[in-house]
């Protein structure tokens, strides 16, 4: 566990091993085998996605006539626009947006405050609180869904927040459950990072009369940019990918975010594999884009988090 933060920083620092030219040549055959094995694996791994892209680009009439495993006569983007309109994808993407963005920001804000307190001040119950927060994040969501559903059904919201008047079936409900569930993980990662920041920094500020808020906001938080970036990319992906919470807590289908909407879309597209493929590609794009552009942060967040689970 002590290795958590150092691992944040390793990031390919291993010095390149001195390679003897002779040794390198002798290994050539083994290296070729290695490349063949890895390239084959990588191709097999990409196959389902490539297949989805290929299927999505073919006109339905042509695949109906020639079968799916066939050379294309022509490729088209028609399936994409059909998936967009028939599946009402913009609506679902919008639902995701208004749940995930606030949930992400609030989670990071709350967890960085909690981590600040836990790492800077020694209370008797620090460890217990950390345990409660972290263990909560590891529970399967299904364990708590039954009472949560009933609580949400009974909690009244003013109608300007949700026209149904309850926390159930509202954006607020899914938002709050994301925050409550993810705050533990982020607190854990951030508090480990903050423990590595020398106490002298905040002590000096304290002597200069800086309040606790100021220490948090102007000293600690700016230093935590790397773990915050890692957590932001990771949490975006996790919240975007949530299927279960919104499936149960959003009773009406049209208010579901995109991933949970897959359950309705399955019925909408039914047997049209070309549309299923086009929708899959569209829904995969945001997380793939985040991963490709922020790969470093993403893997960092995952492996740091993994040191915990």
């Amino acid at each position: 566990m002590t290795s958590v933060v150092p691992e944040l920083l390793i990031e390919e620092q291993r010095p390149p091993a001195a390679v003897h030219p002779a040794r390198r040549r002798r290994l050539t055959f083994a290296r070729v085998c290695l490349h063949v094995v890895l390239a084959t694996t990588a191709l097999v791994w990409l196959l389902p996605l490539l297949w989805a892209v290929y299927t999505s680009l073919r006109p339905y009439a042509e695949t109906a006539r020639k079968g799916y495993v066939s050379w294309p006569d022509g490729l088209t983007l028609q399936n994409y626009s059909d998936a967009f309109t028939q599946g009402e994808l913009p609506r679902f993407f919008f639902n995701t947006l208004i749940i995930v963005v606030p949930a992400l920001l609030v989670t990071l804000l709350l967890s960085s405050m909690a981590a600040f307190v836990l790492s800077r001040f020694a209370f008797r119950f620090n460890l217990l609180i950390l345990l409660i927060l972290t263990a909560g994040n590891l529970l399967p969501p299904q364990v708590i869904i039954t009472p949560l559903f009933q609580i949400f059904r009974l909690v009244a919201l003013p109608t300007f927040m949700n026209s149904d008047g309850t926390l159930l079936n509202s954006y607020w409900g899914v938002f709050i459950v994301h925050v409550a569930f993810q705050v533990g993980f982020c607190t854990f990662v951030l508090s480990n990072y903050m423990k590595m920041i020398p106490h002298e920094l905040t002590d000096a500020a304290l002597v200069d009369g800086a309040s606790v808020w100021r220490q948090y906001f102007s000293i600690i938080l700016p230093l935590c940019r790397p773990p915050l970036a890692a957590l932001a990319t990771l949490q975006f992906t996790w919240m975007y990918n949530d299927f279960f919470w919104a499936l149960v807590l959003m009773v009406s289908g049209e208010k579901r975010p995109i991933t949970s909407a897959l359950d309705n879309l399955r019925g909408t597209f039914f047997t049209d594999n070309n549309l299923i493929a086009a929708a899959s590609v569209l829904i995969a794009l945001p997380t793939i884009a985040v991963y490709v552009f922020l790969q470093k942060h993403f893997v960092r967040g995952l492996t740091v988090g993994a040191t915990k689970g």
Partner: protein
Amino acid sequence: MLGIPAALSILLVWVPAFMSAALSLTTWNGVGGFSAAEPVGAENYRQIATNYPPFWPALQHNLIWLGSFLFIATPIGLLLAVLLDKEIRGTRIYQTAIFLPVVLSLALIGFIWQLLYSPEQGLINNLFNADVDWIGDSSINLWSAMVAASWRHVGYVMVIYLAGIKAVDPALREAAAMDGANELQVFRQVVFPSLRTTNVVVLVITIIESLRAFDLVYVLNHGRNGLELLSVLITENIIGEATRIGFGSAIAVILLMVSLGVIIPYLAQALRKDPTS
């Protein structure tokens, strides 16, 4: 500053967890307030064990899920990590390709794999001229789901092991190689023993993921006909045809106990080892 996050976690995670336990001793059809729940003692648990056909298959499916993750997907991930750790050209590309499914949700993975599994239009049957109902046939569909789930799990395990292996002191390995150990020996005697923490992490992730499994089977066929899992049975009792709150809670408590049996010892050990706290 600490109060709000702690309160949120307690109110929305731990209070419901305890309520699950309380509700599991009652019978309630979910109409009205919590006071409508009537105590029935351990009746729900007795029913589950003796008079609820999907329970034992679901438990068995969860165990098969765990077993295949543990004994098939995880070793493949470890093997790939070891291979990718060698200094070869293009390792970044290979890593990206194998890791890509990890950023996709299991629900979307279920959606994508339909394109391969569907009986008439699917890639697999057309490619091999087969006539297998990969999802509809209850004797094989669990394995079809496992392949799709492993597609993601292998990449996940790989990236964690890769980080673990990179953290092993290279001097140790060089010393072993100097002493004439071959690659397999270096791995077995030097690298693997120093991966202890990583192994525990991978084990915990694998168990948790197997207990949580839900999205994939729900998208494939709503978790029926051979794809029953404990998580599905719980959900069926809230949003399914019959709302049996007490009954669903009892299954949830069983899942909770198994989960805490893994989580608490792990965290207790992990947090205690941390000297700075």
